[in-house]
């Protein structure tokens, strides 16, 4: 008895020290998880904001961004899920109750709670594939892939994540289960949608360019005003009147028929639709535009030129000699090769027969002698 009494305070002290270190370790682990959660949240916000700004500027999807975004989403969701794991799987059972009151009904309940999450995964995946199916892809002038994406599913994930994070801070366990369920659904939706869009972008980018279908040879020379009018005509699909074409010239396409010296012509045509009408009449006389009741459309070789849509590569060669400069541009798409000679007053457009030596022609045309 005397010995026991002597050792009791030491045993209590040992337990207290052990308890202190255990509590401290749990505190540090929880702190680490909370820091991970906050860091991931802020990193997600910053990354999403940056990507959206980049996408708005260029409308070009970077392939890595398509995969990076769902990776960040899955990471943040996983952190939140891990923080809620006990509450989500075991409900209100605490550690003490878990050891004492575990019975077959509890086991069934745990399996039901955990299994129901599979429904969120499957439903989220299916919704993601449906969302991706409605994303339309297109090509830019140089064959890059563009897509129109409103990103509502990202807003859905972000809202679900925010609500779930809020309820995580509050003590209402029954709400946390459903908010975690929705955030898992949203994360699976984003992941499935982005992987599907990624696969679509890859397949479109890898598809060989078809080139122009066979038809009337493209070979014409235009005055600068006619060239500007044709650049407006080539941009739309539906017939448009002179006023609508003038409005579209306010936001000109710099990559196709532009020449620095044409800027004045372009401004004049924007402000003066009748002058644009006269340029369109000039195109019509050359068989490059047609007017119907609904408005102007490209015709003949110009209609075929519009089918080209984009160029995989373009090479512009400017030769400067004796104070004069001459520029020739080669546009290629698959087997189709077009040679454009934009001068201060005229534009020449010529299609090369398949198999012709376009590079020699480029050098020859820029140097001022035909080959």
């Amino acid at each position: 008895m005397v010995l026991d009494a002597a050792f009791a305070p030491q045993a209590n002290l040992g337990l207290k020290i052990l308890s202190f270190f255990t509590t401290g370790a749990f505190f540090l682990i929880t702190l680490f998880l909370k820091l991970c959660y906050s860091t991931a949240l802020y990193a997600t916000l910053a990354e999403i904001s940056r990507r959206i700004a980049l996408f708005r500027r260029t409308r070009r999807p970077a392939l890595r961004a398509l995969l990076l975004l769902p990776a960040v989403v899955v990471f943040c969701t996983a952190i939140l899920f891990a923080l809620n794991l006990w509450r989500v799987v075991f409900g209100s059972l605490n550690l003490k109750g878990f050891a004492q009151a575990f019975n077959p009904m509890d086991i069934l309940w745990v399996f039901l709670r955990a299994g129901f999450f599979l429904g969120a995964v499957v439903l989220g995946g299916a919704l993601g594939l449906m969302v991706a199916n409605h994303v339309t892809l297109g090509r830019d002038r140089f064959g890059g892939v563009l897509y129109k994406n409103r990103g509502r599913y990202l807003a859905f994930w972000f809202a679900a994540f925010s609500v779930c994070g809020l309820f995580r801070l509050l003590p209402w366990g029954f709400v946390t289960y459903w908010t975690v369920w929705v955030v898992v659904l949203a994360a699976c939706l984003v992941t499935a949608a982005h992987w599907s869009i990624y696969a679509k972008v890859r397949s479109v980018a890898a598809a060989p360019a078809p080139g122009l279908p066979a038809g009337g040879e493209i070979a014409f020379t235009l005055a600068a005003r006619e060239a500007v009018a044709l650049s407006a005509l080539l941009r739309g699909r539906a017939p448009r009147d002179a006023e609508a074409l003038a409005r579209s010239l306010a936001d000109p396409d710099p990559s196709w028929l532009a020449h620095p010296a044409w800027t004045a012509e372009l401004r004049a045509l924007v402000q003066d639709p009748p002058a644009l009408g006269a340029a369109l009449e000039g195109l019509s006389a050359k068989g490059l535009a047609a007017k119907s009741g609904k408005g102007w459309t490209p015709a003949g070789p110009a209609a075929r030129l519009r089918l080209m849509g984009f160029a995989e590569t373009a090479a512009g060669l400017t030769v400067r000699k004796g104070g004069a400069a001459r520029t020739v541009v080669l546009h290629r798409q698959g087997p189709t090769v077009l040679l454009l000679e934009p001068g201060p007053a005229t534009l020449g457009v010529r299609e090369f027969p398949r198999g012709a030596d376009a590079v020699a022609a480029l050098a020859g045309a820029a140097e001022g002698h035909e080959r």
Partner: protein
Amino acid sequence: MIETRLSLGEARYLLQVLDLKLAPESPLADPLGGAAEVPAGSTAEAGVTKGLTSRGLLMSDGAPNPFAAAVMVWLAQPEKAWSLSLFGRGGAAMVHLAFKRGSAVECRRDAEGFLLRYPLPEAEAEGWLRLHVDGGRHGS
């Protein structure tokens, strides 16, 4: 081919030392046409001459190496110049050839200055063009 890298300041300094005026055809006219001269006796001049001397482009007496001098003459006062712009999925690039007396110097501008490659016989210019247009990374 010999490859030489020059910063904007080094190129400006060499033009100054050689007393070369930029012709309108020169590929240097756009980046260096409005650039201020490197002040004599300044720390900027000391930095430029140190860099050029360490690479053998300036000799110990401060005069330009004859090769460097010839390249600057080619670039500043070419008889003819080609400017090739390339666009494609791999990005965009611009490269120049300055021709004089049957030979050419290639000049490529980047963030650090100029990358020069020489000599290229004028007879091989079309092959050079073919290499860039058909095999450039812009089309990859």
